[in-house]
């Protein structure tokens, strides 16, 4: 591992301004969908910036829009001659990649953040466990539907304040 390229800090700060198209209060950095960032020699000379984009769900319909917006923002920075944003499954996106800032913003807009995973194995994913109500903080909540308005959202009901709310799914 070489020392972090100082341009990476600039890149991450810029991408922290690119919103998730489906939940715009949270940025692609906070959502954890930005994977590896590296500079490579470009084919026609100069440098190419290569960024991996990790889909939350394989079939996420917002991923192409995200890719375009990330590419556009990076090109506007002028830190490399070429920019390539590639979808990657090299490291699987898991809901643990959502940052603390991201979790706070989700809560602020009525989404329960996913609980942290005890294990990263697919067989141990704890689905449908209690979620914390983003309105009153109660854990006295019931899963209404593991499938919500988008692939990554589940629908809960708070039995304390009787408010329906969504959870960003555990994955």
């Amino acid at each position: 591992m070489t020392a972090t390229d100082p341009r990476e800090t600039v890149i991450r700060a810029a991408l922290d301004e690119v919103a998730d198209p489906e939940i715009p209060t949270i940025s692609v950095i906070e959502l954890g969908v930005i994977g590896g960032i590296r500079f490579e020699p470009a084919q026609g000379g100069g440098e190419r910036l290569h960024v991996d984009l990790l889909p939350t769900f394989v079939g996420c319909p917002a991923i192409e829009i995200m890719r375009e917006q990330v590419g556009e923002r990076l090109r506007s920075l002028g830190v490399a001659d070429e920019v390539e944003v590639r979808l990657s499954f090299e490291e699987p996106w898991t809901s643990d990649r959502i940052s603390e800032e991201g979790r706070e913003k989700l809560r602020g807009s009525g989404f329960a953040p996913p609980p942290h995973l005890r294990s990263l194995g697919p067989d141990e994913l704890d689905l449908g466990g209690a979620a914390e109500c983003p309105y009153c903080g109660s854990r006295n909540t019931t899963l209404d539907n593991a499938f919500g308005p988008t692939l990554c959202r589940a629908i809960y009901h708070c039995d304390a304040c009787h408010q329906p709310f969504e959870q960003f799914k555990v994955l």
Partner: protein
Amino acid sequence: MTGLAAPDTLPREALAELLLSMADDEFVIGFWDSEWTGIAPMLEEDVATSSISQDEIGHANALYELHAELTGAHPDAIAFGRDPDDYRHAALLNHARTDWAFTVARRQLYETADATRLEALARSSYEPLARLAAKMRREERYHLMHLDAWIRRLAEGGSDARERLAGALVRLWPDAQTVFTPLAGEVALVEAGILPEPMAALRRRWAGEVGERLASLGLPALDPELEPAPDGRTRRTDEFRWLHAEFTMVARSDPQATW
């Protein structure tokens, strides 16, 4: 990761066949079950079945992309540009959606078979497939949980629900085996570690597990020794031809369109 097949020794044709069979499975079940959008038994299920179908078509897309990388074809052309006889999905997915119990029975058989297949492929020596399988398994956990709840609900429901479910399971059981119909190039895939276990071994493990679960709910015993039909991935039906005409309608209306 060890045992990654070097590009020059990669059994490309056999790998392409494996990827296409899985992609077509996901694509076709996604389209069949998306037919429930708007008419599922209740609103929550409408959302759930649509979401699951969207997942499956997304998985198909990712698998078609891997296939396209190997063969140089365009993923859209593979998905929408073939004749019905050139699809390679399992015969289980030839049937129309029929009633809700039939859809639940078919999906339970398919999802559990797919889970067994993905568990093996997450150990594949072909890393792009291993990574995708590992990612897909996390999403499929939600499908398995949802389908198991439906199986339990119908099995423990009234006699009408139970009889329809049992009837559909018995009818579909022979075709369910075809998810594991051996592939032409299977020996090469197993030798290269791309398919970590032969289809026959995967089928036996799946049949034992799913049979046990269904029997525990008092559903009819299903023969775990039943062999899959050799033409399980090439046999096509008029019901599938009808679905094919539906899902290729937009692509056929303007073949030169950019998506």
